[in-house]
């Protein structure tokens, strides 16, 4: 053996299922990204709140989701949430629940790091100018925090795009799942897996270029 004859006609013949899978992947990514952007900020506010129980809950949530594999989270939520809470939604929504909570935990950390990176002199200046705590948060802290967090938030979103491939394991028909199915049906795993990998890659690269651009602009702004 040795020489493998490539045959990419299998891709063009099965273009529709692949694109349908891609649509599911993109939907999952977009919905969870929005959940993560908002939820992450809320959880971050909880972590920094003065009320201790609120802080403990938030820290527990973050550590739990950051320190277990995403696959374990997805499978746990699929098997155990219906049992504990007596609910079972469409698998798609269960996947949103799992991935959304995962990205929320990671984004909360990103927001927190950004808020902590604001130098103490800004807080001092606010006090010196006699700004109320609310004004301080809205006009001084928040704009800087969001700006500083953008690169990490985008990186997390790229991570999310790749994490969505895990839902294939619980049989949600995303890009990875369609690829897996086609590979077994057509006996052409090489062409199909390579194409699927290339699609993920082609989606990630522009995003990571944007991250690089943001970082450079932030650095030149701060310098």
């Amino acid at each position: 053996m040795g020489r493998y004859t490539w045959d990419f006609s299998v891709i063009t013949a099965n273009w529709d299922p692949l694109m349908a899978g891609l649509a599911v992947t993109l939907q999952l990514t977009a919905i969870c990204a929005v959940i993560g952007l908002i939820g992450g900020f809320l959880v971050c506010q909880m972590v920094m709140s003065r009320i201790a129980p609120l802080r403990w809950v938030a820290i527990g949530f973050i550590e739990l989701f950051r320190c277990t594999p995403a696959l374990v989270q997805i499978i746990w939520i699929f098997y155990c949430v219906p049992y504990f809470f007596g609910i079972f939604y469409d698998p798609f929504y269960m996947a949103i629940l799992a991935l959304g909570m995962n990205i929320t935990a990671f984004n909360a950390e990103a927001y927190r790091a950004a808020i902590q990176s604001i130098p103490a002199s800004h807080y001092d200046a606010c006090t010196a100018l006699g700004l109320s705590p609310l004004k301080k948060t809205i006009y001084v802290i928040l704009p800087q925090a969001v700006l500083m967090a953008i690169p990490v938030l985008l990186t997390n979103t790229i991570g999310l795009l790749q994490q969505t491939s895990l839902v294939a394991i619980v049989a949600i028909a995303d890009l990875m799942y369609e690829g897996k199915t086609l590979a077994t049906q057509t006996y052409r795993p090489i062409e199909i897996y390579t194409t699927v990998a290339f699609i993920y890659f082609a989606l990630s690269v522009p995003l990571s270029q944007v991250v690089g651009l943001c970082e450079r602009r932030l650095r030149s702004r701060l310098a």
Partner: protein
Amino acid sequence: MNITAALGFLWDYRLALSIGLGNTLYFTALGLAFGLTLGFLVSVVRQAGHPVLRVIATTYVEIFRGTPVLIQLFWFFFCLPAILGMELGNVFSTVLTLSLYMGAISSESFRAALKSIGAEQRDACVALGLPARVSVPYVILPQTVLRAVPTLLSNCVTLFKESALVSAVGMADLMYQGQMIADSTARPIEILTATALIYFVIAFSVTRIVSFYERGYLARMRL
């Protein structure tokens, strides 16, 4: 749910779970050893290599950071043996994928650390008349390693978590054992929760070590 019964049930499966954990740690350890070495070499090549080598190294890093680990695993399991026309062995494919992934993410950490060393340090070496064979091991390298350690340790945690994916290609790691027991006993709650907790305890302890180190390191930098 009866806690004692749940613990008794878990106790019955302690051997299967510990075999799984052993495999997870084994794959992670091998992936770390090869991945960190590769990552360091790649970062040096990207910093100071021949332009052609630099392009190859950058492409490698982008591909492995830009595609889901799941598809990398599938690719190395099903496609590479077919292309090469020979059996590679399950463990080999697993370790190869994990090492290449770890190499890509850790090379970024090494590179960031190399970059973070100020130009004044190099200038000072020149001013003091230190040749490269003195300045690199005594000035540049210690600072690089010191600065890279926190991110490298979080990379290690990431690899440990990502290693759960090898269950999807049928490697008997902790996740795989957990799912098998859950499926064969129809008691997913206890076993999946226990699996998640095992991952959590290990990953959480390592992240604690990272933050202790960071605190100590930051304190030292302020001196």
